[in-house]
């Protein structure tokens, strides 16, 4: 059986979660690999959550918010947009592939976009293979 990545998805309540719902309502098919956790705003997503997901065995983390300028909370998504690049820079140093973490924007009307992002992310992570916590598999000690 091919490797089925586990991806934790954080969606904001107002745009991306609704976009994800719309994908369902419109019966669009998408990879089941992303499991969504609803937060009120992408600005709520702490870097800790992303690290925790990896610690617990996630192979990728997807954070989706409202499009820039459309945040239900004015500019919570901009806060996410500040944190994510810094986190990614740190993760790169930790040897974690760039494609395992993605921040993107999906509006409530973009069911198709939601599906496209989820499918693309799933395939990229699948190509990278499982994320293994190196601490546990270190050769010496």
């Amino acid at each position, binding site marked *: 059986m091919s490797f089925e990545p586990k991806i*934790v998805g954080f969606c904001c309540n107002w745009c991306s979660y609704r976009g994800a719902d719309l994908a369902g309502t419109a019966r669009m*098919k998408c990879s*089941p690999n992303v*499991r969504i*956790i609803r937060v009120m705003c992408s*600005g709520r997503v*702490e870097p800790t*959550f992303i690290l925790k997901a990896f610690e617990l065995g996630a192979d990728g983390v997807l954070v989706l918010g409202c499009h820039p300028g459309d945040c239900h*909370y004015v500019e919570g998504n901009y806060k996410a947009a500040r944190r994510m690049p810094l986190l990614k820079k740190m993760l790169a140093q930790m040897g974690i592939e760039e494609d395992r973490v993605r921040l993107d924007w999906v509006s409530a009307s973009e069911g198709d976009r939601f599906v496209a992002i989820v499918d693309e992310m799933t395939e990229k992570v699948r190509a990278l293979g499982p994320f293994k916590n190196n601490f546990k598999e270190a050769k010496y000690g």
Partner: protein
Amino acid sequence: METPKIGVYVCHCGSNIAGTVDVQQVVEFAKKLDSVVVAREYKFMCSDPGQNMIKEDIKNLKLNRVVVASCSPLLHEPTFRHAVQEAGLNPYLFEMANIREQCSWTTEDHEKATEKAKALVSAAVKRVRYHQPLETKDVPVNPATLIVGGGIAGIQAALEIADAGHKVYLVEKDPSIGGHMIQFDKTFPTLDCSACILTPKMTSAGSHPNIELMTYSEVEDVSGFIGNFKVRVRKKARFVDEEKCNGCGVCMEKCPWKAPSEFDLGLGERKAIYTPFPQAVPNIPVIDKEHCVYFLRGRCRACEKFCERGAIDFEQQDKIVELEVGNIIIATGYDPFDPTPIVKYGYNRYPNVYTALEFERLCNAAGPTGGKIVLRDGSEPKSVAIIHCVGSRDENYHRYCSRVCCMYALKYSHLIKEKTEADVYQMYIDMRCFGKGYEEFYERLSKEGVKFIRGKVAEVTDRALTDEEKGKLIVCGEDTLLGTVIRVPVDMVILCIALEPRSDAKQVAQLFRISQGADGFFIERHPKLDPVATMTDGIFIAGCCQGPKDIPDTVAQASAAATRVLSLISKGKVELEATVAVIDEEKCSGCRVCNILCPYNAITFIEDKEVSRVNEALCKGCGTCVAACPSAAITHKHFTTEEIMAEIEGVLV
């Protein structure tokens, strides 16, 4: 924490879920999860029997947490919360797993769908353990209302609230209320005189015992929250004592100094001491320091000499007034688009190219030409072209449709036809006449012999190709209905300029903590279902500040805003979000990282305790501050770090 006893209910949703997800397997899986006391399935959990199943279990099995795996929480979370509450449990001790929209409907493979459903149920079960009972709080509502902007929207809203017996502060930055509407000549489609229908409302607003008019004033600061705003207003110095002035007008008569009239868009003149127009409310002049010779050179004071009441006060200073209000309506209106940048249309280059607003003044009997439609040289035009969508529906300027231009353009054709012999050409892209009586007006105008040319005008030029075109403005473009380039020689061109957000809309948005759309207009809470409220509770928007609209729509929205305010006043209290952020002052180090992150200014720094504090009335519960707090001192109720961590663990089973 009490021992969690969790009930899990998996919904078939007919075949919507059960057709793809093996519900039985999910139930068996749920039964084995930690703290789960009971797990059941049912055809339609949202039905009465479904809800009763939960209620019975809460009673009989003493459940203290409930998970329903069914559709999107955006659909039925309120339903199940209510059911749980009816069974005596706090509604927040409930969690929903979305196994329909985000699982059965998007997944084809039954096995994978079932696996995903299990993961989502496991996440909900793990999360719900950490749920805490939450209570909503009430705060009283101050019955006074602030209305910003004294155009038709502000006046309408003010009158409605004042008539209901509540105090209104109507703040207007210009010397008189009236807004753009008072500049208009006639109103479409009924062609009643704009001033005739507006001035009675202005007068009522000016004399209403419940309305405190604050003209020539601007809001400088807003703090507080729904029900309890504190507002600082700057009353600019008029140099005329409002108490003493009786509006006799002698000062204006005697003032020897003139300046271009803003009200007439520079087409006419006014004095250095002036009211913008004769029916101004209040009928109290202001002195324009830029043009008053006393202020410029220290001599004159003619107005002072002639004022019998001694109302002129050259020493007057700006005054700061503090107001306390419960609700705010923003009705700041729009700015007319300046077409100068569209060089090809010749505005400011060819004297007989006018903007729509200028033409309104030109048409108006009280305007600079006494209502005669004439060219700059005083002669009557023989032909007029009205160019639509100037700055509207154009990626280079504004993408949106300004919504009123088609109609006022039609109105202009009527006025031109009525007052002159001129031929009128409407150069349009689409005729949008959607309102009540509008299409009929369009038809009526068509019958008056107005010529419609479909196509966006490419250029207005004075370069004649034929003798016929000499001395004319030639309007060129494609007539898309003929598929031919057309040149229309005319004497006068009227540009139907876009309605655009006020130049200070950004500052206003920041001041009141409301948001602007990409187009710059203020954003309503919901484009369809809540077009009056904003994301900031207690702050409403009405009129063109929310987007271009005509007078009937503006009035309707203003009345709607007034009604929303009145309903809050009549309720007397507001319920606050329960899922807010709270700062543990025992943990807050006072680093102030969170302070600036809050878009609602809900976080204040308590200087003496050196800690930050969230004002729960202002907090909307986005959680941005929570994610930023380096001390983990902020808790997002119902979205706590523990809860989300548990959910992460859950989805990764």
